[in-house]
């Protein structure tokens, strides 16, 4: 357990000292929000509310996928072998999932603040929305980490990563959009229980599959 924490701290320290990934992705996010604003800013507020959900999740998805896939593709060969001799695969994948989750959550919250301030803010139930952001960040992190581990071994890994990741994120985003719609409509939290349970189930399923399968990927 301590090893997972140490590995996570390693990733975090590397990121803080060398802010390349988080800075570039925050900039990317700001650019996307700007584009959304230019495209839609002149519409009346009611029209924005109907597309807000779609734009938000598209922006969030592209930024999150980029941020999580960088976690494996930036591994240099020597470091990989060094880590292999010290720690087991399970610890590596858990530290990467947790790190990806926190980064993705940070990016999502920043994205939401940007969206809410620049475009209008139709969300009425903040707690539920925050819960959705947490669940989606974890789900994306868990599923994309193991897929980027697979894709990083291939030749043209970016294309492969996009192809492999699309179906997995579809089911997560589908539920998230449904919950967002409930948030915008101002429904009670109990109306979204089905989707929340489904998202949690997806998270648990993906985590357990990653835990079981990662050692096989890591051997080479």
């Amino acid at each position, binding site marked *: 357990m301590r090893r997972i924490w140490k590995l996570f701290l390693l990733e975090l320290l590397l990121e803080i000292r060398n802010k390349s990934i988080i800075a570039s992705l925050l900039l990317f996010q700001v650019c996307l929000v700007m584009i959304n604003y230019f495209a839609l800013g002149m519409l009346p507020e009611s029209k924005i509310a109907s597309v807000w959900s779609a734009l938000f999740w598209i922006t969030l998805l592209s930024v999150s996928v980029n941020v999580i896939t960088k976690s494996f593709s930036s591994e240099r060969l020597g470091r990989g072998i060094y880590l292999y001799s010290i720690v087991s695969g399970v610890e590596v994948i858990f530290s990467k999932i947790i790190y990806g989750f926190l980064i993705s959550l940070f990016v999502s919250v920043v994205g939401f603040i940007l969206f809410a301030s620049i475009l209008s803010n139709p969300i009425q139930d903040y707690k539920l929305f925050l819960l959705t952001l947490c669940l989606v960040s974890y789900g994306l992190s868990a599923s994309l980490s193991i897929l980027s581990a*697979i894709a990083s071994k291939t030749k*043209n890994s970016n294309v492969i990563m996009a192809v*492999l990741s699309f*179906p*997995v994120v579809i089911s997560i985003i589908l539920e998230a959009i449904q919950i967002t719609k409930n948030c915008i409509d101002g429904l009670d939290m109990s109306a979204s229980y*089905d989707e929340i349970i489904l998202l949690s189930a997806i998270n648990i399923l993906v985590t357990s*599959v990653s835990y079981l399968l990662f050692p096989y*990927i890591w051997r*080479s």
Partner: protein
Amino acid sequence: MKKSWWKIVGVMLVGYSMVGGIIFEVPRLAIVNETIRALYFHVPMWFCMVFMFFISLVYSIKYLRNPTLNFDSKAVEFANTGIIFGLLGIVTGMIWANYTWGSPWHGDPKQNGAAITLLVYLAYSILRQSLPNPDQRARLSGVYNIFAFTTMIPMIFIIPRLSSSMHPGSGGNPGFNMYDLDYQMRMVFYPAVIGWILLGIWVATLRVRIKSADMKIINIEYEKNR
């Protein structure tokens, strides 16, 4: 002949289901009327697809525990056969939908779920193509096969059931108890499912044999030219 009895049984069952599907009587239900006969062709495709993907999963697991390339080629060929059945299922569904729902593609959750399932396994093929080393290819695609099956197939079947769908019997099981299948329909339906599954296994095993024959030819050529 002794070892191929099941192939003949498969062909006969499919032939029987085709003939019986057109000739036997079917119960009349609202909206679907006579097109309920498409049940004999559309639903067995999905059963076959899931069955093929399941066998592919089993061989992937077997490969990861005991790395022999034979398991890997079986896994990929069963997955390919499953993709074909999936495509056939979507096409038959579109034909059926055209007559009952009015247009071939309605954005129905089950249709979308089926399309996403096919995308998952097409991604599997693309992943295999981009890995040149055979052992690495077998290992990584085996891992992706397990990941894809265990996370996607349940999701694709559960999510449409939760949301309202135009498919008959949504909210219930995907195949059975759909129309109060009376015994007349069951008499054609179950043999159809078994027949198509047997045909699918035959096609997949043929492809595996072709692949291993190709490998042998390549090896012999290589030995000759050394």
